């Protein structure tokens, strides 16, 4: 009787609910020629609300010239976001300080220039946005991985990094000067 019941129970097992005839993200498809269910945009189409008319915001250039201004105000929140995104996407090669000493570089990737050389300290901020958007030298573009506003936030944080490496004692508020030189565990850098 047990065996009979087990047989009935087993034959009742079907996977139709488990594997429904619909696509999950990035699933394979035998309907389209390239075997992918996710479809690329048809060439020269623009999705509703995604026309990229603001040249400053989307290219970092105005009339083809790289600009030295941000398309939106840089606030503390923007800088915090920039720091977080920089640590995710940029620090593997550029290092947490931006001196080009990241882990991937230590494993043999071509070393990028430090952000703290004169050429890059003098470069307009749109230059950094442009490099993130289109790549530069050995660096691939990051337009697919980092959304537009995050790229600007990272550019703002790069500016902050550049300032941090050329700061003088006069830049430190008097109240904070006494704590300089102490171990960094409770220093200002770890406070976000």
């Amino acid at each position: 009787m047990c065996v009979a019941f087990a047989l009935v129970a087993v034959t009742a097992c079907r996977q139709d609910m488990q594997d429904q005839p619909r696509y999950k993200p990035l699933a394979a498809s035998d309907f389209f020629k390239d075997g992918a269910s996710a479809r690329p945009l048809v060439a020269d189409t623009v999705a509703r609300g995604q026309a990229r008319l603001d040249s400053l915001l989307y290219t970092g250039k105005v009339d083809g010239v790289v600009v030295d201004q941000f398309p939106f105000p840089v606030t503390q929140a923007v800088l915090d976001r920039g720091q977080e995104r920089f640590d995710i996407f940029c620090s593997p090669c550029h290092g947490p300080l931006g001196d080009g000493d990241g882990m991937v570089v230590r494993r043999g990737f071509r070393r990028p220039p430090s952000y703290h050389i004169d050429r890059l300290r003098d470069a307009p901020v749109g230059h950094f946005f442009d490099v993130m958007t289109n790549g530069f030298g050995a660096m691939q573009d990051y337009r697919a991985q980092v959304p537009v506003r995050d790229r600007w936030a990272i550019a703002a944080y790069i500016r902050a990094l550049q300032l941090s490496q050329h700061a003088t004692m006069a830049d430190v508020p008097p109240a904070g000067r006494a704590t300089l030189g102490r171990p960094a565990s409770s220093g200002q850098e770890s406070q976000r």
Partner: protein
Amino acid sequence: MSQIFTKNANTLARASLVAVVLAGGVFGWLIVAVPRSDYITRVDVPRPQPVPFSHKHHAGGMGIDCRYCHTTVETSGFANIPPTKTCMNCHSQLFTNAALLEPVRASFRNDTPLAWTRVHDLPDFVYFDHSIHVSKGVGCATCHGRVDQMPLMYKENTLQMEWCINCHRHPEEFLRPRDQVFNMQYQPPANQIELGRRLVKEYNVAGVQQITSCSTCHR
């Protein structure tokens, strides 16, 4: 006329009583244990992949953040499997002659995606969204385990309903501060319950009644 039943038939009859109970027990145990076995849930079983990608090397050794590749985990239900281009960000220069990576280079050359085998595959009748869990303070490692210590990807947890609902009933036992969600080395503090209760309030986690409702996940 001789007896139909010999004397030891009594023993057989008694033994059959015990046997029925035992068989029932074994059958019941099978029903409970088989669906939870690694054979069915595939917990701890690495799956064959086109390239033996090591999270241990990339996330652990290199210290690359989860979001470098899984870019949409904070904003979408799907955490995203990176396109081959993301691999080539580094492997255009690193290990360019490694035979192991030939499928990656071929994929990039021919513009054909790598066909990874899905390791965490929920049944289609379950609704799951990564972004809400991340934004409420559920760490990656809480569900996926120490991915940074996995040379090959495997499931750490069953993803079965009884496992999901254990956290939905007691979220305060598992939540962590948002800035620690992607930290693989995070250890819960000694006052986890106290911290968890505070985070449940601070992050506006829906009440247990609501997040254990059937239609939260079966919609």
